[in-house]
């Protein structure tokens, strides 16, 4: 339990650092550490597959792409565009709304008396595969199609640009 609290503290600490740091590259690196702590959380829950996939996809691929774009744009503190006051105010209002919603949602929750101890091996690859391909086959396939659409969209966007350059 103490391990959980420690990891949770580290996760929240680095999540806050992600927001508060001024340098975009530092921000990305803090986010990488945050994702790493989430991976540790998954391992604590004995969800090894999810842990490793989180590690590969978020830390290994998505954050590398973030860093890649930041390096290409070469953003740093001096080039950060100043946001107008209107945007700032709107940001504060939106954030407060989210906070109120979360607080309200958390107030309603009552901790259940009985501790639910399901199958602790549910996070292992074999069990996860069985559940995904039997019980939740339809949602699984639909999310696959969703990803496919995003992929085709990305390819289409990239293609369009090439054609315009050729015309000009």
């Amino acid at each position, binding site marked *: 339990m103490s391990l959980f609290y420690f990891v949770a503290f580290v996760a929240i600490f680095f999540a806050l650092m992600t927001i508060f740091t001024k340098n975009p590259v530092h921000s990305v690196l803090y986010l990488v550490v945050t994702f790493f702590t989430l991976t540790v959380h998954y391992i604590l829950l004995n969800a090894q597959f999810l*842990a*490793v996939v989180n590690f590969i996809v978020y830390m290994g*691929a998505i954050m*590398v*792409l973030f860093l890649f774009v930041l390096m290409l744009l070469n953003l740093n503190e001096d080039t950060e565009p100043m946001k107008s006051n209107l945007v700032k105010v709107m940001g504060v209002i939106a954030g407060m709304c989210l906070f109120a919603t979360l607080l309200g949602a958390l107030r309603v929750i009552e901790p259940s008396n009985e501790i639910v101890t399901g199958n602790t091996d549910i996070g292992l690859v074999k069990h996860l595969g069985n559940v995904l391909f039997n019980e939740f086959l339809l949602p699984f396939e639909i999310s696959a199609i969703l990803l496919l659409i995003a992929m085709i969209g990305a390819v289409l966007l990239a293609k369009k640009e090439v054609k315009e350059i050729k015309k000009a």
Partner: protein
Amino acid sequence: MEGAFILEKLILVVIVFTISLVIAMYSTLAERKIAGFMQDRHGPNRAGFGGILQPLCDGGKFFFKEEIIPAGAHKPLFILGPTLAIITACISSAVIPWGQTLTIGGREVVLQVADINVGVLYIFGVVALGVYGIMLGGWASNNKFSLMGAIRAASQSISYEIPMGLSIIALLMVTGTLSMGEIVAQQSGFVNWNIWAQPLGFLIFMVCAFAECNRVPFDLPECETELIGGYHTEYSSMKLGLYMFSEYINMFVSSALMAALYFGGYNFPFMYELGLSENWITIIGVLVFFLKIFGFIFFFMWVRWTLPRFRYDQLMGLGWKILIPLAIANIVLTAVVIVVKDTYF
């Protein structure tokens, strides 16, 4: 967890760590010797008998060189770059099964540091992490050539991770498990080696391994003729040494991975027919495994001194337009073969 178990694993970790470092050290010598052989010259032969002490001299030289951190560099990240590179290179060997069990005084010792049930994916994760070392080092140097090298490294590694993953998926369909220990154990003897079931998958995996290690013909991140030294242009002293070392350790680990996943790991032909005791089979198995690894390391070097470097668009074209479709075709082919085999045989 009992104390003896922790001690046993600790000893194993230290041994594996030492072996990877020593092999990385002597790979530098082997590389230069092989280059010499291919170019019809001697190679380094002054330090010790036939140049055997050359890696020690090089290491000492690295330690005594002046360490320079450029004025415009981002200091913490500049130091973090090579650190991350060497750490990720060293931790990936944790899931490789080096041999079967040794029985020492009634106690069974498994020659594998950790047989986690997602071993293959773990290696993927660590490989994916490895690119941070190069990217951060290249960016923190505050040098255009370094940045170019870093960006090339990032896009190259992401592009080649995809066909690598797809070729592994086909392998997993054959083996039915993600645990490295089980994958190797399944390939006992000679006919069960995965290379016979997955020749195309192996070819794709090997090409991707070359790209992930930044080895010739895919060494564009450090392409001397265009980028001076690529991502490590600004590095000097042992920091440069760590980058070079991590490259050689990566080469060792990916050789071990290829040997374990496709060439049977510690399995050798007629291993149970010769009437050897269990311990002898294990010891010979470990030696055979290292022989296979050295074979692959030699192949890496052979390619380096034979093939010219790719152009960058050719590299991307190969990755996205040839390897990925081939890997997907391999998956489909494997699936069809498995289904036909299950229904009709």
